[in-house]
């Protein structure tokens, strides 16, 4: 049984992009497009989710993702409650479900969940009543579907189509839920060549089975690319002896103007944020003419509005 879709194929929860049909991805992107102008209006609101209560359950800290979900919900006229819940690694599943049950008793309509453990959003989605939708805002190393969607939206806005693109994802693919969501979305939307570029220690084994080509060298990997997606290198990864040092990493895999020159001249540079300047990306590139990192943030609001609107409209039918 597909937890994410209703029996008639509509979106019920958004937990992962893995296995979501192309038609649904395209529907979300098209809907997001129509929400783009709401942010430009005198009244930056539409009444779609008036009277709905959305709870942002963040078991893991995040400023930007939580803020854009909050803005998206408010632009749809929903009532939003943010809960930042500190958890220890001992926190049991029952404690999470107790929290969810209590909020459901307050008549929650939607949960936006971020959790350090893979599968947390699925766990909650299986538990909630049929009228409640769950959006995964990042779970462990597993998935971050709205980030993947906003990246696709950004690519479509700047490149128009997917079928003629070469896209490189650079950096810590091993620990990245963002990379996994991006790869699923890119292949589903018909991007013919998806590459991952990273040192061997940061590439998960068997990643080729997801339909990507693996490179360990920036010059070869970036050659001919239309889109370069940089991943955040988490500093804690440096401790586990996967990498010698930040300087060493930057030397070989940090995106500089010189390395970006291997890609197509009109290639766009993306990053899910927050950036480590001087580790995975040079400031000159991050703030340069090919960077679309700030538009990504803006588009993230429209994409999250689209997901929430489709869920709210589909769940009660």
């Amino acid at each position, binding site marked *: 049984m597909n937890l994410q879709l209703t029996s008639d194929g509509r979106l019920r929860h958004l937990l992962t992009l893995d296995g979501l049909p192309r038609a649904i991805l395209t529907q979300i992107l098209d809907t997001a497009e129509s929400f783009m102008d709401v942010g430009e209006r005198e009244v930056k609101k539409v009444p*779609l989710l008036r009277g709905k209560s959305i709870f942002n359950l963040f078991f893991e800290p995040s400023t930007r993702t939580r803020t854009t979900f909050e803005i998206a919900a408010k632009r749809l006229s929903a009532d939003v409650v943010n809960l930042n819940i500190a958890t220890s690694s001992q926190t049991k599943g029952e404690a999470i479900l107790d929290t969810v049950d209590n909020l459901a008793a307050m008549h929650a309509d939607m949960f936006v969940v971020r959790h350090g453990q893979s599968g947390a959003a699925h766990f909650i989605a299986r538990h909630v009543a049929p009228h409640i939708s769950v959006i995964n805002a990042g779970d462990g190393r597993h998935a971050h579907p709205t980030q993947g969607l906003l990246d696709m939206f950004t690519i479509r806005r700047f490149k128009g189509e997917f079928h003629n693109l070469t896209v490189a994802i650079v950096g810590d693919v091993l620990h990245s839920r963002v990379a996994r969501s991006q790869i699923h979305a890119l292949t589903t939307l018909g991007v013919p060549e998806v590459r991952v570029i990273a040192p061997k220690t940061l590439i998960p084994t068997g990643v080729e089975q997801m339909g990507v080509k693996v490179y360990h060298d920036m010059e070869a990997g970036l050659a001919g690319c239309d889109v370069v997606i940089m991943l955040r290198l988490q500093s804690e990864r440096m401790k586990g002896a996967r990498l010698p040092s930040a300087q060493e990493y930057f030397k070989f895999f940090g995106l500089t103007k010189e390395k970006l020159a291997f890609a197509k001249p009109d290639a766009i540079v993306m990053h899910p944020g927050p950036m480590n300047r001087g580790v995975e990306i040079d400031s000159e590139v991050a703030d340069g003419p090919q960077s679309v990192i700030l538009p990504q943030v803006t588009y993230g609001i429209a994409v999250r509005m689209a997901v929430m609107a489709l869920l*709210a409209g589909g769940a009660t039918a």
Partner: protein
Amino acid sequence: MHASLPDVDPLIAQLAAAIAPTLTPDTVIVGIHTGGVWVAERLHAMLHCALPLGTLDISFYRDDFSRIGLHPQVKPSNLPFDLEGRDILLVDDVLHSGRTVRAAMNELFDYGRPASIRLAVLVDRGGHELPIRPDFTGLTLAVPAHQNINLSRLDDGHLTLSLA
């Protein structure tokens, strides 16, 4: 094609003739997707409006959203002018319950405060559920509740009415 339905072009010409004397320099024409935009495009050309045509997709303002969800093909609303103080001529193809017009007015007010709004419809089919009546009507036709009257556009741009 229903034999008794009139041609669309004379109806639009009749609407344009009725609207023409009421135009002000601040009049903007706004069509409601999809059929209303087709009619509005014709009126906009026939009335030689200086200001660009506006279009509204009222999907985000529908009062039946929680029952039927989002329309699969929402088109962006496009109002390429400041609404403040304008005289708006809102155009739709068919007036039925009036709920679409209510939603359209709600949306317009989220863009600004117009001086006035008037409503032009190609067909007023009856069945009103709200105190909304057209200021300009191409055709008044009592259509039974179980039937629909639809405007469609052929590949050559020709508009036709049909009952289903």
